[in-house]
Structures are given as C-alpha cells and as structure tokens.
C-alpha cells in the first residue's frame, strides 16, 4: 500500500501497523464487510416476499395451499436456522445442476449419482468450470441469500399473518360495504393497514437477520468471521507480517462493528414507527 512497506521486518510499530492493516489480505476483510451488508439488504426483500407468500397461503381457502403455507411457517421455525444453512445451499445447487443436466444433456445415459459422486455433464455445471472466479463467488453468495430468505421468510410469514389478523374488522367490513372485492380489500385496506402491527415483529427480525450473518462463514462465504479467524491466528515467519495469536483483538472489533450496526438500525426503526403511527387510531401514536 505505502512505499515504505517493501520490507515489513524493518519497520517501526506505527509504520508496521499501517502496512499490516492495509495488506491485500486485510483489504479482502474490509471488502467482506460489503458482502455482509449486501446479504442483509438482499435477504430482507426476498424474505419479505417469502413471508407474504407464506402468510397469504396459510389463510387460503384451498386446503392444500393452506397446509403448505402453515407447514412452511411452523416447520422452518421449529428447526435451528443453522441446519437449513448447512442444507439448503447444497440441496439447491444439486437441484439446479440436476435440472440443467436433464435439459442440456438429455442424451447422456450415465447416471448422475455414481457411488458417492454427483456428476453432471460439463455444460450443466453451475457456474461453468471455466467461468471466472468471481462468478463462482457470486453464485455461492446467491445460494446463501436464498437460504437466508427461506429461513427468515418463515419468521416473516408468522409476523405478517399476525399483523393481518390485527387489522380492525370494521375497516374490512367498511370496504366490503363499499362493494370492494376480496382482492381489492387485500390491496387497499389489509396490506396498507397491517404495517403498523407488523413493524415491531419485523424490526425484531431485522435485528435477528443482522446477528445471524456471521453464519455465512459456515456456508463457505468469506465473511468477516472468516477473515477475523484467518488474519487473527498466529503467523510464523513464512508470512511477511508475523505475529502472535491476535484473534481476541479481531473478535473485539467484530463485536463493536455489530453493536454499531444494530444500534443504528434500532434508531431507524424507532423513526419509522413514529411515522407509521401518524394518523392511526392507535395508542402508540404520538
């Protein structure tokens, strides 16, 4: 990074640290911060989408859809999220490659599962083997987003179902007496009115989502925890910057980082609550 960094072993403490903290490897750690933020920002809308699907499905008049919706909401909430994180990406990846294999290489007669091996034809690989490294990273990241959205969608669905139930019946009946159809009632009354009831639950989920991002590390995505462990471990002179075991320091920084993010978002939600409470006949309005 800096010119004087060519020979780290000869540097004074301050210069040594300014070089050490700007090695390309440390840059990867700072960069992984964006990975974490991107995961949160992408998971939230997708999770909400899964949530809406789950909530409306569990209120559906069709019994099969209702069972699917309720099953999704309660089974996913009954199992530790980490189990899904270890499971969903692999299952999804294999499912995608399986489908691509069947469509792209329909004439290959060899079985896909051979003993322990899962072998699809070269064209069915996702992404292709010769694709650039970043495509593989992005693909792995997107699998993680789906896994997170799947889990958080179930929690969202539970919150949204509760909020939909809390919309005062009078408002819905008023809509009905005005001659609105079921869909119009849903679009014009239920959904806009339920947010104030859903907000406390959703803000809770948002905090939960932030605090579960360190699990990305278990999905093979190089996130902050991965780099903190990698950089913090003791380094022999095989490395240009050798040092003792500094993991405690790295984890302290991580704790502070997360504390900061959760505090900021808590403030944001408080503001949003005040805004939504405006014009509501609701005790929280002030």
């Amino acid at each position, binding site marked *: 990074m800096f010119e004087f960094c060519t020979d780290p072993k000869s540097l004074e403490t301050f210069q040594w640290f300014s070089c050490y903290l700007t*090695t*390309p*490897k440390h*840059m*990867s750690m700072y960069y992984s911060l964006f990975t974490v933020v991107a995961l949160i920002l992408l998971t939230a809308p997708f999770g909400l989408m899964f949530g809406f699907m789950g909530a409306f499905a569990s209120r559906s008049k069709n019994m099969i859809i209702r069972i699917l919706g309720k099953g999704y909401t309660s089974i996913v909430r009954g199992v530790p999220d980490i189990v899904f994180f270890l499971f969903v990406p*692999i299952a999804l*990846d*294999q499912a995608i*490659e399986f489908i691509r294999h069947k469509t*792209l*290489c329909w*004439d*290959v*007669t*060899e079985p896909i599962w*051979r*003993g*322990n*091996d*899962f*072998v*699809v*034809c*070269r*064209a069915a*690989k996702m992404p292709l*083997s*010769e694709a650039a*490294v970043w495509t*593989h990273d992005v693909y792995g990241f997107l699998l993680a987003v789906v896994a997170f959205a799947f889990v958080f969608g179930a929690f969202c669905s539970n919150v949204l179902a509760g909020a939909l139930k809390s919309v005062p019946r009078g408002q819905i009946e008023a809509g009905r007496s005005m001659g609105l159809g079921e869909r119009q009632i849903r679009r014009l009354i239920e959904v806009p009115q339920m947010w104030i009831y859903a907000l406390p639950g959703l803000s809770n989920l948002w905090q939960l989502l932030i605090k579960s991002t360190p699990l990305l590390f278990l999905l*093979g995505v*190089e996130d902050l925890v991965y780099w903190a*462990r*990698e950089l913090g*471990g*003791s380094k*022999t*002179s*095989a*490395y*240009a*910057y*050798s040092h003792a*075991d500094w993991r405690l320091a790295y984890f302290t920084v991580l704790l502070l980082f997360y504390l900061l993010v959760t505090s900021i978002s808590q403030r944001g939600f408080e503001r949003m609550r005040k805004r939504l409470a405006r014009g509501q006949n609701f005790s929280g309005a002030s």
Partner: protein
Amino acid sequence: MILKSLGTTLGVMALTATVAMSDTVRMGTEGAYPPYNFVNDKGEIDGFERELGDELCARAELECVWVKNEWDSIIPNLVSGNYDTIIAGMSITEERDAVIDFSDAYFPSDPSAYVGLAGADPALINGVVAAQINTIQASHVASSGAQLMEFASPDETVAAVRNGQADTALADKAFWEPIVAESNGELEFVGEDIVLGAGIGVGVRESDGELKAKFNTAIASMKEDGSLNTIIKKWFGEDAATFE
C-alpha cells in the same frame, strides 16, 4: 451444442472425459496449513502445493484455478463437483480412498509428531491431545486411547497447547517445524515421531479417471527430472524426506 452432437456418438466418453474438453481444472485447497498451503499477505494461495500444483498443471497442459474450502467439508465439495481436485496436504488413507481416488504420492510419507510445552513428559502423548478434525492424526488419537480434542483448523491446535488446554497436539511434522523453531523454546517435540498414511496425493473423484491419469503422468515426470525434490527442499528444508 457441441456436447449434444458429440454426446450422441460418444455418449459415455463425453462424460468421463470431463476435463478433456476445455481443460479448466478447479483445484481445491484449504489455505491454512503452512508450508503446504496458506493464504499469503497478498491474499493469494501460496506454499508448496501452490507451486507444485501450478507446475503439474503446466506439464499436463491444464488450465488451473485455485479454490479455497474449509478442511471440514473439503471431500464433500469434491464429490459434489464444486472443484475437481483436492491438493491440500491430504494423506492417502484407506478410509478416504474408499470414497475418492488419489493420484500417486507427490510427497513421501511424512512423519507426524507430537508437540507440547517445553519440558513436557513424554507420557503426555497419551494425555489430552489436540488434533484437527477429520485428519489421520485425529483418527489416530481417537483409537490410541488418549483424550482427543478436536479443532476446526490446525492453528487452533497450536493455541490449545500454548495455553495448556491440551497436553500435546499431533500434526504433520513439517507443519510443526517452523512453529517450534520460532517459539523461543516455548514448544518442543514430545515422544517419537509416528508414520501415518501412505504419503500425500492429489484427490480426485472416482469417476474422474482421466484427470487422475494426467496428474500421475505429470507427477512421474517431475519425479524423474528431480524437480519435485527441488520444490520439496525449497519449502521443507534440506533435510526433508524426498523421493529416491
């Protein structure tokens, strides 16, 4: 499209010859086991296996890309096709050989050694022993009657000995040597070295016979002209075990 038209005539061939087509081979490694493989300060994969792997790929005329993967799930990700080889200081053992295939050894059977705090009693190799999860060392400790303590990375086993959680730790001797040498006398080898496994080879899927053959040819040619021994000596010192 090419695959489809080939597929009808060659059928089986097109599949087994996965690497023959466009020749990008994804090389899986751990990146946390210096000097075998590690991530250097530039953030690149470095070490003995990086240099060796690049040379093997050059000789086999393959285009290679390096992929990092946690040790814990390195075999599952090979068999599910996330990469095509494992080149991560993985000893050839019967148990692993049952699920994946190995090339010929590119590193001779390396002794494993116990390390403890200076002045440790040799009997402590039967005390609390730290080892990395899913390694030959871990299964050796589990069956030896000592108390096994498992960690996800080799680095953590060193820390466990340093702070006295474990009496000793078992790992490849070549991994220990720089650590013991630079510990200012804090760490020491304990007891006798033991030989586990039948050398280190490149792991490939069982269905990938062609890739295995290519690596075998490349390894044989490096053994023949002595360049393999040169790389071994470069990374493991003049006294390292080499091929005849």
